[in-house]
């Protein structure tokens, strides 16, 4: 056994932290698996959703009063752009079916590789 004093301040903390982590993970997950914990979590989520819905409604009213577009307006705009993109994609696919691709293709790579077990030099 060495008589050299332990000069690493993290030496003790390392062992302590390892024990603490095991205990917290074990007991924490046992606690969190209980129905009461699930109920409490869902109550918090529900409250957060209510607050969010109320604040959305209030800010929509404020924006309408200031004659500014609301989040819902931007979402509607996004949805319309998405629909236009989808239509363009369909047109592109239809065109591809009747006309060759105009973009120069990446040089075709030989798809002839063999696994090491089948290579002639193995």
């Amino acid at each position: 056994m060495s008589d050299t004093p332990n000069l690493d301040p993290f030496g003790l903390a390392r062992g302590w932290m390892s024990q603490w982590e095991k205990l917290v993970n074990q007991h924490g997950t046992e606690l969190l698996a209980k129905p009461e914990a699930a109920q409490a979590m869902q109550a918090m989520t529900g409250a957060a959703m209510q607050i969010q819905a109320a604040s959305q409604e209030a800010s929509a009213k404020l924006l309408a009063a200031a004659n500014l577009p609301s989040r819902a307006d931007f979402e509607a705009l996004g949805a319309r752009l998405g629909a236009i993109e989808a239509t363009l994609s369909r047109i592109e696919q239809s065109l591809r079916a009747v006309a060759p691709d105009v973009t120069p293709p990446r040089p075709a790579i030989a798809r002839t590789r063999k696994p090491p077990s089948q290579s002639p030099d193995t």
Partner: protein
Amino acid sequence: MATATAGSAPSPVERAIQRNLKGLGYLASSAPVLGASPKDVVLSRGPLRLYHYHPLTDEVYRVPVLLVMATTNRGYIFDMVPGQSLVEFLLLRGYDVFMADWEAPRAEDRGLGMKDYVETFVGGSIAEVQRLTGESDVSLVGYCMGGVLSVLWAGLNHAAGPKNLAVFTTPVDFRQMTLFQAWSDQRYFDVDRLVDTLGMAPAEMLLTAFDMLRPAGRISANFALLDNLWNDEFVKGHRMFDRWSSDMLPLAGEYFRETTKQLVWDNALMEGTMKVGGRPVELGKIAAPFLHVTAEHDHIVTTGASAPLIGLIGSQDKEQVVLKGGHVSLIAGPNAVKRMWPRLDAWLAEKSV
């Protein structure tokens, strides 16, 4: 420099000095650039981004590989930094690599459901890979929920392929994910209200749920960082994985609703009652060679949740491999470089000609 060299570990005093010096550097420096392998975005639909990586060899295997990322996280876990990138590893081994990655769904994507993810996104990616390569055969490789989507697509389209199906840490028996089961208890968790109110499953909610699977995890990880500030490799790894694990994505509302109701509440995949867009998922009819790699210490998708999958797949040529590691260290980091990647290559190479 006091980092360890062969046969001479730094003394506690040297470590303490380096911790203090490098602690300042850590706070001041920028995070490493992740997911930087050269690639083209070849398909972009809603939250889907399909990447085609530039080959690194003169010739590639005939069958292209399509990686399917989990829908809750970013795909750069497959492409961290040079030397720690599964994508780079596969490219150097001669594969033609594609990846179905995800962006955060936008407000107008709230209505995307399981059918969109399976048929439009995974199925659409396969079709695009086939078109770009001129090959009808594609190897499908999915991680976690990306594995679920891959298995669902294969179970719906067993006559069409894929050529090979490999999945990592893919849950099938959701009853065994006990904490997720408890938190989504139907008596308290109103998924309809959540989706109808918010339109999405918020990323913060998902991150909190994953964190609570190991309540002490974040604190002990930060302590380990402080303890190892003298070690450049440790710090680099910590930064990469910490950034990735915190970089979660929200889920489209309908997709989250269907996942909760069908997979978590009804355990439909395990029970054989899973339907996507009204069509039955028939895992027993999947005939493609199948590999399932799971992690011995996976605290997210536990062995109980993932192990039954192999028995449900109909393939004659099927294999389950349990490797050391956790849910993330199985696929990225030094453990993956040493264990999982060579295993995947050995399995896939013979089947890719």
